[in-house]
């Protein structure tokens, strides 16, 4: 079999290609972005499939469902919080008569390396009542992605492959298999299977619930869910899930005994295997990456017969990532002795805006503009520019979710506050900022929107935004913002005074004003030129 060194994200992409996808859709988000980056990079080599960034995760998911409707296979990928955006089509699609394989790859970010929270997507799979696969090696990422497509077509449901940061962004050798051809166009004949009216949805929901037994039987029998029993040791047993297995195995050789061990990679939770383990031991330690999903299922409300340990009782930390060290401690092993501490204090080095970044000049101008007011609210959004919260700029005050800067500014202004400025990047504006701007215009809110347009989705590695900058102004115009209060500025040091004056004037204007600060991201001009030349 061919071998390649792949990131977990790349292994997932390769698994999808070899499963015969016809299309893949995504919105960039760490740690999932490299799935689509890889698909786009290798598309010319591996053939004829669509690999596209979309406006947001919801539009990406919906496009993938459309591919399934006509019988072909689709991958849709996103980060964990992206699934909040796509939750509506995702949850509902579990009811549909999924036809061509539909796989959702979602990458969680425990530890919040580059995220707003560390939510665990396994709850979403459970919420939608579908199957979730959680690989622990890059090789398994590849295999399970292939398996997910098979399961989707066998059970007519979307199937989730859940990654976490350390598997998504770690490289290892992956053995790849035979590539199978794409499905032919073959529109679903399930007439009532694609339309969720109350009358049809009730029937489809009942069917989905009826099928739970089959999903559970699949999980119980899956060779990925392995149970090893130690017939002579009863003090405790271990359940691992995802990367919990890796860190447990890293330490197990040093443990005096090998306790009974159930590993869970395939959900729904294989209850029969859990019960077989529980019969043997007085206590179960659950080691899972993310929230205490399995642990809480075991704990329930009533007192369980077996003591359950993990994140809920403090055996493992309830926030952040698992590590070889915290799993080691949970297994009662002493920490290893390393080098003595030097006593030298190491200052933190948080990420910061690059030297020459256009956001620096935009924030200088914004800070100058707001300095003239006694009070202000400056909402912001998600991207490199969120770093404007940190010194030396300290220019922004909020960051909630994609697009929230605009809606929050509208709310604050309608509550009677003035002045209110929202700052948002071009990518985030196109993702989720347009609809709240429509709201603001409709209600005649008194707010200023500063679009920091660097013509790229920068934070996640420089993906092309869905619309070119030249179309942003027309878009804002089309929404109904007064053309006299749509301003274009170039965020350069030499224009700071002038830009601050424009921002200040628009803050004084009573109504919705939009300022577009347009200058390319300094990181990506080369990439961009390359792409433009190719197109």
């Amino acid at each position, binding site marked *: 079999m061919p071998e390649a*060194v792949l*990131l977990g994200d790349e292994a997932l992409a390769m698994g999808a290609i070899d499963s015969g996808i016809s299309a893949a859709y995504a919105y960039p988000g*760490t*740690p999932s*972005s*490299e799935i689509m980056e890889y698909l786009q990079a290798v598309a010319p080599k591996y053939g004829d499939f669509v690999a596209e960034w979309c406006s947001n995760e919801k539009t990406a998911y919906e496009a993938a469902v459309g591919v399934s409707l006509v019988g072909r296979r689709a991958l849709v990928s996103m980060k964990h919080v992206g699934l909040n955006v796509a939750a509506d089509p995702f949850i509902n699609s579990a009811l549909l008569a999924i036809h061509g394989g539909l796989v959702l790859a979602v990458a969680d970010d425990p530890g919040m*390396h*580059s995220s707003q929270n560390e939510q665990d997507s396994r709850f979403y799979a459970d919420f939608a009542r579908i199957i979730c696969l959680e690989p622990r090696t890059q090789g398994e990422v590849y295999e399970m992605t292939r398996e997910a497509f098979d399961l989707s077509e066998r059970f007519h449901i979307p199937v989730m492959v859940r990654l976490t940061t*350390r*598997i998504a*962004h*770690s*490289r*290892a*050798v992956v053995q790849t298999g035979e590539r199978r051809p794409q499905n032919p166009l073959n529109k679903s004949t399930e007439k009532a299977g694609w339309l969720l009216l109350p009358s049809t949805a009730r029937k489809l929901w009942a069917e989905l619930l009826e099928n739970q037994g089959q999903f559970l039987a699949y999980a119980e029998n899956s060779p990925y869910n392995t149970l090893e029993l130690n017939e002579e040791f009863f003090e405790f047993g271990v359940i691992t899930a995802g*990367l919990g*297995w*890796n*860190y447990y*195995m*890293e*330490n197990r050789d040093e443990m005096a005994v090998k306790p009974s061990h159930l590993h869970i990679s395939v959900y729904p939770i294989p209850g029969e295997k859990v019960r077989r383990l529980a019969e043997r031991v007085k206590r179960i330690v659950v080691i899972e990456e993310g929230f205490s999903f399995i642990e809480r299922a075991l704990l329930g409300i009533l007192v369980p017969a077996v003591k359950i340990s993990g994140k809920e009782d403090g055996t493992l930390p309830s926030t952040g990532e698992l*590590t*070889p*060290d915290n799993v*080691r401690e949970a297994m009662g092993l002493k*920490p*290893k*002795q*390393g*080098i003595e*501490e*030097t006593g*030298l*204090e*190491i*200052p*933190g*080095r*948080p*990420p*910061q*805006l*690059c030297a020459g970044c256009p956001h620096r000049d935009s924030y200088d101008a914004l800070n100058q503009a707001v300095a003239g007011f006694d009070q202000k609210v400056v909402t912001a959004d998600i991207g*490199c520019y969120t*770093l404007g919260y940190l*010194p030396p700029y300290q220019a922004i005050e909020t960051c909630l979710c994609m697009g929230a800067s605009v809606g929050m500014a509208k709310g604050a202004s309608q509550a009677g506050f003035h002045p209110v400025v929202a700052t948002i990047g071009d990518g985030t504006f196109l993702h989720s900022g347009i609809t709240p701007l429509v709201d603001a215009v409709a209600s005649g809110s008194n707010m200023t929107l500063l679009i920091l347009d660097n013509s790229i989705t920068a*934070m*996640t*590695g420089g993906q092309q935004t869905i619309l070119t900058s030249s179309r942003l102004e027309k878009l804002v115009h089309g929404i109904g913002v007064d053309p006299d209060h749509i301003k274009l500025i170039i965020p350069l040091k030499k224009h700071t005074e002038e830009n601050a004056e424009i921002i200040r004037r628009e803050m004084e204007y009573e109504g919705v004003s939009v300022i577009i600060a347009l200058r390319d991201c300094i990181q990506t001009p080369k990439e961009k030129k390359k792409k433009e030349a190719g197109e």
Partner: protein
Amino acid sequence: MKYDVILAGVGGQGVLSLAAIITLGAMKDGLTVRQSEVHGMAQRGGAVQAHLRLSDQTIVSDLIGKASADMILSMEPIESLRYLAYLKADGVLVTSTDPVKNIPTYPEVEGIYATIRGLPSAQLIEAAALAQQAGSARSTNMVMVGAASAHLPVQEKSLLAAIDELFSRKGEKVVEINRKAFQIGWETAALAV
């Protein structure tokens, strides 16, 4: 055999391409490799680290535990000390001497060097100057690969072949500069050992 390396530096210093060369070289030697990287927000001028694990057997964990790394390889002196808790008692620290002072409270550099010299096993490499000598400041990270190679269980020829492979599309001159940077780094570290 198992050899664990914590790679450290500041976003933009080429820590990932440094990791890529060692990974590819190790694979040419038939070793199993796991390489955990940092992407996203942390890359913007912040502290970055990567975990690189080499073995002739299966590697189960993507992350290295504390007091377990055989080497800390750093592109920046204070970054080399940030992860000291990960170094084994008999592990080696190899770092560039070139500070990246993009923070308001950068400690006094001589004090950092003294701390590093006080460790049981450490090497300070004047990587930027040596890279200039090789022909380009951009080859600083290859100087550090060369310096690390004096300790790594990877053959020199395999690392050189990896350099050839990864830089070939940038042209012969770039390959030559990076090979030279590697050699200079290796000589500097090997002479000091």
